[in-house]
């Protein structure tokens, strides 16, 4: 490095132009336009948005795609495997498979037939091992759709009462999303109001309000939610109330912290000094800066509410039967996870997709709202 000396003639002064230095080379963008442009460039987040839109559309219209109702029970078609015409190659061919072992081939075949109530004409038997070495193994593939003479297909199969899981999965998604959105909205309103008031008035009010929060934050929300569910009648509204009763606290703290921070920042002081009215400071500086955080926080609240609903169902505090929600469906499917995995599979996939999509979108939004990411 030492022996390299740049020569003077390599440097050429730039032509200076008074007008140009003040020229704004890029179009003037508002905060939102700018964020939106950055968000749009984030393929993952856009995909997340797309998945969410698809899920929401399915939650609204999915149940209308076939004529089965949410609670149409028919025990004769209970526990049917999923079948979609043309999707046989991924396993949704509406068949059940069993592998049976026994000492002799006949025994194994007899057991395999018995497994599917001896309806021989609908069972396709493959011998895996003929029992020469003392253990025979056969695989039987059974077509319950043919055996029951069904014309209609159950796309996601049916549950233990013969209810169509396609319909129930999408209705369940609807209920779960509804619970999550409602809980998030209530958190938002209370949290923003509390945090805003606390930060705006400051002084003694702020002091008292903060002490209250400090005590409340010590109560684990797991416990509060469980206790609230115990005393309220089970239902959508009680789950929402239980989730929001401490859920707003984090929102309130974020809003308060952010406003307190912003209130004294140079750019706010500067615009105040320059004579900007309160209205303008609020609109141009405070709101955009806080709103980003509020949106992100809400985006994280929604999936955690959905998760909590599933958790509550699993410990027996969920929605009353026969209401379908992702939680109750997963709880129901969990008991047959080893034998009829399709009952669990579809709601589990939907809940995972919702979780992933919300997290990605929230991440994307965080990046998009962060001015440091500006190019």
């Amino acid at each position, binding site marked *: 490095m030492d022996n390299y000396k740049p020569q003077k003639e390599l440097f050429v002064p730039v032509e200076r132009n008074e007008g140009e230095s003040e020229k704004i080379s890029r179009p003037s963008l508002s905060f939102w336009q700018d964020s939106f442009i950055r968000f749009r460039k984030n393929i993952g987040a856009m995909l997340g948005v797309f998945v969410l839109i698809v899920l929401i559309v399915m939650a609204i219209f999915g149940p209308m795609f076939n004529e089965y109702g949410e609670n149409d029970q028919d025990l004769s078609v209970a526990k049917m495997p999923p079948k979609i015409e043309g999707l046989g190659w991924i396993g949704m061919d509406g068949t059940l498979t069993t592998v049976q072992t026994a*000492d002799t081939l006949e025994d194994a075949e007899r057991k395999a037939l018995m497994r599917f109530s001896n309806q021989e004409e609908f069972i396709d038997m493959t011998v895996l091992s003929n029992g020469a070495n003392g253990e025979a193994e056969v695989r039987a593939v059974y077509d319950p759709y043919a055996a029951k003479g069904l014309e209609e297909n159950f796309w996601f199969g049916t549950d*233990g009462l013969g209810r169509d899981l396609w319909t129930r999965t999408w209705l369940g998604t609807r209920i779960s999303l509804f619970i999550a959105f409602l809980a998030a909205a209530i958190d938002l309103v209370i949290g923003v109001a509390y945090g805003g008031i606390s930060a705006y008035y400051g002084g003694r009010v702020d002091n008292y309000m903060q002490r209250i929060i400090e005590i409340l934050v010590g109560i684990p929300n797991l416990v509060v939610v469980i206790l609230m569910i115990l005393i309220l009648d089970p239902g959508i509204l009680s789950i929402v109330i239980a989730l929001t009763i401490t859920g707003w606290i984090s929102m309130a703290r974020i809003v308060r912290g952010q406003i307190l921070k912003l209130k004294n920042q140079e750019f706010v002081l500067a615009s105040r000094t320059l004579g900007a009215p309160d209205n303008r400071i609020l609109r141009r500086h405070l709101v955009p800066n806080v709103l980003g955080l509020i949106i992100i926080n809400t985006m994280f609240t929604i999936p955690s509410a959905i998760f909590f609903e599933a958790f509550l169902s699993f410990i027996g505090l969920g929605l009353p039967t026969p209401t379908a929600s992702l939680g109750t469906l997963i709880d129901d499917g969990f008991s047959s996870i080893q034998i009829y995995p399709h009952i669990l599979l579809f709601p589990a996939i939907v809940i995972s997709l919702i979780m992933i999509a919300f997290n990605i979108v929230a991440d994307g939004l965080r990046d998009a709202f962060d001015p440091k990411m500006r190019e």
Partner: protein
Amino acid sequence: MKKTNWYLLVLALVLSLFLAACSGGDDSETGSEGEGTDTTETDSEGSDEASGDSEQVLNIMDSAEIPTMDASLATDAVAFQWLGSTTDGLYRLGEGAEPEPGIATDHEVSEDALTWTFNLREDAVWSNGDPVTANDFVYAWQRAVNPDTGSEYGPYMMNGVILNAEAVSAGDMPVEELGVTAVDDYTLEVQLEKPIPYFESLTTFGTFLPLNQAFVEEQGDQYALEAETLLSNGPFVMTEWNHGEGWTLEKNQDYWDAENVQLEEINVRVVKETATGVNLYETGEVDRAGLSAEFVDQYSSSDEYRIEEEPVLFYVKMNQENEILSNVNARKAIQMVIDRQGIVDVILNNGSLPSVGHIPANFVSHPDSGEDFRELSGDLIETNVEEAQQLWSTAKEELGIEEAELGYLGGDSEVAQNMDAYIKDQLEQLEGLTVNVESVPFQVRLDRDTAMDYDLQNSGWGPDYIDPNTFLNMFVTDGANNKTGYASEEYDSLIAEANNELALEPVERFENFLEAEQLLIQDDAVIAPLYQRASAQLWKPYVQGVIVNPMGPDYTYKYAYIEGK
């Protein structure tokens, strides 16, 4: 680009997971693989040498922690099971639910059937070496009805049976006045309130087990809280009790009948999830596992699959204080509209039977002919949706209503969710009826039952002794567990007669019960029977000699042994 690529990857992988899960989804293998099968065929032949070789250890599961090992306080199946395995009462439940000698060798009944004198064996000892004497029974029974003990089953089992129990349990009389006395160390005299034809069967029940007074009083509050603070005089001794995890029973070498006990050890683990239990069974960690409806589909073809019938009935209780349910036609419509076969075949799928009365099948038989009560009584209800609709419209006319709304308190068994949804659906076939399901914990349901704060309720009842009275006595007017508002003089007099004048006339008494059941179910439609419970289980074929009991302890392990493991 930034951190976008991996999001795509995530979605791609989720999708592939989904596909993989789908295609692999229906692959299921049966229980016959793994350790169980190899031994399946080694049945009884040539077993004598085998049994000598096998380790006499039984590994099983229970669905809950033992609530108490204090015989006076026990109320549930788990407690009675392990009390029964460690303690002998006057009699024990043997094969076919017939009482067999325990601490008592035999007994005499006085002519008026009010005084029972038990002769006790002299070779029975507690695990601390003390002999088991008549005083142990006197102390135990007095303790059970003593209000200070706070026992629930004490008053429930003894009031109206043992002389003065009612007054003692209410605190109106000293415990010494209870009708049980030790004539000498090995003779116990019991005074009954009235003749009780099933008293011998009662003495096998957990609440009537003896207690070693010196030991219990020495332990005080700590009695029966740990393996070290309890005594046994039965086939097994509890040697280890890790709360929440499980417990270990070992053979009691000092047991009076030790030569007939083959098992050296019973290990019990607490496992609540059915799937976990089945998985443990598959890996050979336990010798028995209960099955849920889904697992029955998979295992019903296995050689290790067994169904155990139980005399436990489930039914829908109807609160007659509700205006709609006070109408007998409405109640009959509800009885008739439910498809019981569907319940047992699809939802339960474990060998349960549709219930068509209020006495279980294979529970009691006619004292002379030996015919089963259920067969003699026949199907008191049938499913007939059309007739149900007609009855329902009649009821609606009589009540002057078009629409009806009823609440339904759900059950608390493992299948409760599906069961409740199904019954709601079945009932709503009745035109204009809306059923609102409420699932509540068992305790809450009991509370609301006591307060009669319900319209319809999924309820169950298991016998406390082997006699029709345990089922039919429930519904006498203002009975403690009636709680339906049902009041019928005719019914009351039938039951009262059976328990008093006819107590010593088994045949007439039986006839009375037949008549009462018909009145209860067919004529007055007090409850809507659902099913008689059975349980589907997997048993390792090397476990032999376990007796299944209809009441009290679910199983008798005294004669169990391991063969050909």
